[in-house]
């Protein structure tokens, strides 16, 4: 059976000279298949949004409806979770949603999924948490630490609650990165494993004799691949949506610190 992990290997397409950053070390600047997938995703989004807004009409055409629908969907989400001030963060949430969605969906059509690399998802999660920290300190100053001290909790419970809140805050970027990475990796491994069953059972049937029993098994596995692919399309959208929702929730914590709306 083919190695299901083979699809996640990174190989260089164009080898560029190494770049030495003082204090950090040498960085490999090669143009890899991961870079290619991300560039394609970003280019696709830009091309799509440009095509959608090229000739805006009062009565939108088909393309314009898709673009406006996506825009409206995330706009409602951001305003619904963060409130009126959420409009400021709409560009960030919208671009991160579209970028992850494009990478996930491209991964189903091409051989390589950029979001199945921990380095990519960890960077997106670090970006989100950095924004949360910057917004939190810029808006609340040192009052940011009230995040770890929930209001209305008796002082003797705070001894227990505050460390839990600190740990849960520190785990946020970790789970944000691992959720996207784990979902895409797990889904693609499952798809490849089922696809491998089709080949090995087909080879068994080619042997003839009792091996012909492999044909219904191979057909079952093929059905499994089709069903899993359909599920992966759902997961691809859902994970991008979840990332956007969680980015909104984490931003809401620091934007509306201390007062709920």
């Amino acid at each position, binding site marked *: 059976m083919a190695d299901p992990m083979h699809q996640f290997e990174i190989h260089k397409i164009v080898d560029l000279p190494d770049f030495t950053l003082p204090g950090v070390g040498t960085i490999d600047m090669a143009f890899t298949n991961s870079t290619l997938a991300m560039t394609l995703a970003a280019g696709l989004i830009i091309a799509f949004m440009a095509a959608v807004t090229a000739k805006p009409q009062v009565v939108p055409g088909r393309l314009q409806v898709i673009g406006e629908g996506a825009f409206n969907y995330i706009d409602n989400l951001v305003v619904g979770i963060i409130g009126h001030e959420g409009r400021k963060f709409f560009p960030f949430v919208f671009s991160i949603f579209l970028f992850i969605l494009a990478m996930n969906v491209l991964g189903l059509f091409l051989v390589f999924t950029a979001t199945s690399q921990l380095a990519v998802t960890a960077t997106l999660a670090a970006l989100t948490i950095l924004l949360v920290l910057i917004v939190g300190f810029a808006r609340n100053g040192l009052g940011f630490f009230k995040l770890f001290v929930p209001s209305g909790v008796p002082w003797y419970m705070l001894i227990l609650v505050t460390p839990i809140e600190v740990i849960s805050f520190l785990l946020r970027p970790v789970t944000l990165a691992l959720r996207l990475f784990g979902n895409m990796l797990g889904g693609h491994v499952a798809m490849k494993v089922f696809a491998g069953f089709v080949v090995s059972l087909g080879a068994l049937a080619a042997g003839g004799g009792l091996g012909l029993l492999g044909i219904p098994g191979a057909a079952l596995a093929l059905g499994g691949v089709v069903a899993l692919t359909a599920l992966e399309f759902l997961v691809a959208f859902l994970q991008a*949506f979840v990332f956007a929702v969680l980015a909104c929730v984490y931003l809401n914590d620091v934007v509306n610190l201390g007062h709920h709306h």
Partner: protein
Amino acid sequence: MDAEAAKFIGAGLATLGMIGAGVGVGVIFSGFLQGATRNPSAAGGQFTNLILGAALTEALGILAFVLGLLILFS
């Protein structure tokens, strides 16, 4: 026991953590469906919360999955 065999058994055992995540996601969706069938008009507004709860629960299962991978490939 062979160290390699112990590694495979350990990776398999680590993925058992997904049982809890599976039960948890099931409880969330069952709660949502129970609420949605009783008051269908309120169901649409809770979709974001539903996905949020499922995602947060699922993250723990993913942690078990990643732990299994770490044991398997280290």
